[in-house]
């Protein structure tokens, strides 16, 4: 007999002793992943999992333990392990659980049709992506990866402080990585789309875009080193957002690991640059009514018109910083404690079309892919040097492809030199951005 998540969480909370604060985060998910290649299903993975993570705080000391698919007895044993771990924790007055608060459910997050989508329909979507990907450009005959996947998840959180929250969500995605070949040269192209139900995906568009992005890079050359206007398309721009999200977490700030630490109220970007985190934004795949400790989610304008307004907080960092949580407690599933993390984290789109951005960037380069941001960017100093590929821009149109070059700058310099922000906002997993025109940057090639 399968126990309901709420019951599992309740068992943990009931095991609390006097003076202990106990929170249980219970989660269950089902997912399917279909990979297609050469007109056939290459891989079909289907999965089910559930588990519970328990935080226990006593005398300001925190302990944590988790268990996969626990029985009631195992939950009690998990609470006991968390209790043992708490005895070795460091006392910290900011170790507290979130208070109970009302949250507003979100319509349109869960679709029965997605939860009940038959396997053969998932298979035909994956096959469709591949079929279109290999037939839309004469130089693109095969794919490295093509597929469709979905996830149906449910979370329940309960605590001795009165938190009692639950929600469910469906999500699905199409992905295509194509290979374009000509005269011994091979280039790859990527495209991706996410939605809360399959009906809102456009698999043909994903396939065609991946093919186009590979084909247009054929024959790319290594350019001369030069200082030119740089236009980051949403794919390339999104690579930098992860580093920004880390630097804007109050956890990084409080531990002296953020380049934005002392800059609240100051100008950190051009006035056209606004950066938002919005946990309730339905278009974003991370949309949820509350965060991973049960605090209601909401919108935080981190950088508004180029001015730094504040940081992302969970309950711990908020208390330590004498402020309120922004609803950004974030876990990597039931196996981890809540840290601070972005939800739907995006650059507010402007009103400039992609065509006008191209016209403004005349003589420059459109960057469509950057590599090595995680290793090549220092989240503390903001310095980065990353590999890049893209296309020259001449006369308002895309020209010769270029590769094997690097862009080096610092995040603060880059944000301050944003010259224009496009209207083409697009989400990749939970980060989103439109195209962004940077004034001038050095492209290092030969």
């Amino acid at each position, binding site marked *: 007999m399968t126990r309901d998540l709420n019951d599992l969480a309740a068992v943990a909370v009931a095991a609390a002793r006097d003076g202990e604060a106990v929170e249980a985060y219970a989660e269950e998910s089902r997912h399917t992943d279909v990979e297609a290649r050469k007109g056939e299903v290459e*891989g079909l993975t289907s999965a089910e999992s559930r588990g519970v993570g328990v935080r226990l705080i006593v005398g300001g000391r925190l302990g944590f*333990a988790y268990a996969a698919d626990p029985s009631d007895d195992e939950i009690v044993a998990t609470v006991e392990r968390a209790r043992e771990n708490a005895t070795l924790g*460091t006392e910290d007055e900011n170790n507290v659980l979130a208070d109970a608060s009302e949250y507003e459910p979100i319509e349109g997050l869960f679709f029965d049709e997605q939860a009940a989508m038959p396997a053969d329909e998932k298979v035909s979507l994956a096959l469709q992506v591949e079929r279109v990907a290999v037939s839309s450009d004469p130089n693109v005959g095969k794919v490295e990866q093509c597929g469709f996947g979905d996830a149906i998840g449910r979370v329940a959180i309960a605590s001795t402080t009165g938190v009692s929250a639950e929600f469910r969500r469906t999500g699905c995605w199409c992905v295509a990585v194509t290979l374009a070949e000509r005269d011994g040269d091979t280039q790859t192209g990527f495209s991706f789309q996410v939605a809360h139900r399959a009906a809102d995906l456009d698999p043909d568009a994903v396939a065609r875009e991946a093919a186009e992005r590979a084909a247009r890079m054929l024959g790319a050359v290594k350019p001369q080193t030069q200082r030119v206007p740089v236009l980051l398309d949403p794919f390339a721009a999104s690579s930098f957002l992860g580093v920004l999200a880390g630097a804007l977490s109050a956890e990084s700030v409080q531990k002296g690991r953020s380049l934005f630490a002392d800059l609240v109220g100051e100008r950190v970007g051009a006035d056209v640059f606004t950066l938002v985190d919005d946990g309730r934004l339905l278009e974003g795949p991370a949309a949820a009514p509350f965060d991973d400790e049960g605090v209601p989610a909401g919108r935080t304008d981190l950088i508004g018109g180029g001015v730094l307004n504040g940081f992302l907080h969970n309950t711990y960092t908020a208390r330590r910083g004498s402020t309120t949580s922004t609803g950004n407690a974030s876990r990597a599933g039931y196996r981890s404690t809540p840290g601070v993390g972005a939800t739907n984290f995006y650059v507010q789109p402007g009103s400039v079309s992609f065509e006008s951005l191209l016209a403004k960037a005349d003589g420059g380069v459109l960057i469509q892919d950057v590599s090595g941001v995680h290793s090549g960017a*220092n989240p503390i100093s903001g310095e980065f040097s990353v590999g890049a590929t893209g296309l020259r821009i001449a006369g308002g149109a895309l020209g010769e492809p270029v590769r094997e070059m690097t862009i080096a700058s610092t995040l603060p310099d880059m944000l301050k030199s944003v010259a224009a922000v496009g209207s083409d906002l697009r989400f990749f997993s939970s980060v989103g951005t439109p195209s962004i025109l940077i004034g001038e940057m050095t492209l290092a090639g030969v």
Partner: protein
Amino acid sequence: MLDRELAEEVLRAARSRGGAFAELFVEERFGVSVRFDDGKVEELTTGTDRGAGVRVGHGTSFGYAYSNRLDRDSLLQAAAAAAASVTENGAGDVVAFRSLEPPVVHEATRDAASTGSADKVAWVREADDAARSHSPEVRQVTAVYGDSLQRVLIAASDGRWVEETRPRVRLVVSVVAGRDGNIQTGFHGPAGLAGLEFLETHPPSETALVAAERAVTMLDARPAPAGEMTAVLAPGMGGVLFHEAVGHPLEADIVDKEASVYRGRVGERLASEIVNGVDDATVPNAWGSFSFDDEGAPAQRTPLFDDGVLRGWLYDRLRAEKDGAPSSGNGRRQSYAHPPIPRMTNTYILDGTSSTEELISSTERGVYVTALAGGQTNPASGDFVFGCSEAYLIENGEKRHPVRGANLIGRAIEVMSHVDGLANDFDIWPGICGKDGQSVPVGSGSPTLRIARITIGGTG
């Protein structure tokens, strides 16, 4: 972990529609981790995980289903789901099980579970103390200790029955150092397929000192130069480059997808003739080692390059059967929640005959890279980019000041062909390798290695 009768019943159900083979992977994992950050024990976690995955292979296609429930109904349900993608072709056979003997056993003498968490907390405190007392410029220290005990059972329709227990231990220290507005980071994280005896040979305080020294040294760094020049990579670092830029395109799934720059080129000289490279899961107690891979194939040492000549691929079962080759024992998975795919184990370039001094003193202008931050590579074109977290300028044969923001940029075949010196000071570095959403422990090794010409992306 599971009795043989039930395993056989599940495999029969998985082969109910046919297919080339069926396989059951059962896993239990117990782990402890301690995170010490900002001067305090931030997190002390104990976790238990378990689950099983059933796979049915047909051609290079597969169906896979998993659950973290191990009861009969859940396993049979997973078997049915895994079988669903197979074209009906009559039920397949399940051969009587026979237990396989491990080709290599990685001895662990001190079981991590026998030691209380208090000792583990003491080790991260020791690391924090050592790093902070190294220099007043050390501003922040994060020390993370983790041990895990993974028990696996692999049973397959061809009769293989494999059981293995894999203990792993790791202690990672990250240090932030600051001087005025300048902030730099340093990292060190030794790890092994071993018990707690590993920490006797890799004391937490020494790990912390390496990380602290790295961060403080980099405070003196000046912007790295840009352009084409020579690079000398410290022991282990050449292995990291070899893993990323060369190893990934040698994985048989990448080759099968025609997305490898090496495809169709076995037998050709595609690296300098001084380069001998292998993938080797038998290195005693190394982080990327095991006795059996996650498909039950025995651990082995696989030649990749002999005198610069490409020898072959890293195979899992699906791709090996397609090519009519034996598996090279490279079918690995992050956990029961993932189907196995070709992965590296410990991948390395063997010792040469030079010394580090010779390689530096004969370099007119270049960079000496002592720590890489990781990188990215495109297996189809061989293009790669690596960030250097610790590097120095070489001028007129001498190591000079540290440089920051240096990137190594190049293409696999070209760069490996430009290797013109190997020392005899081999070392192996542990790391976590990510591919297709799965992370597995790997080792990357090399002696000091010189690349005559490579593009350095710097800001100076």
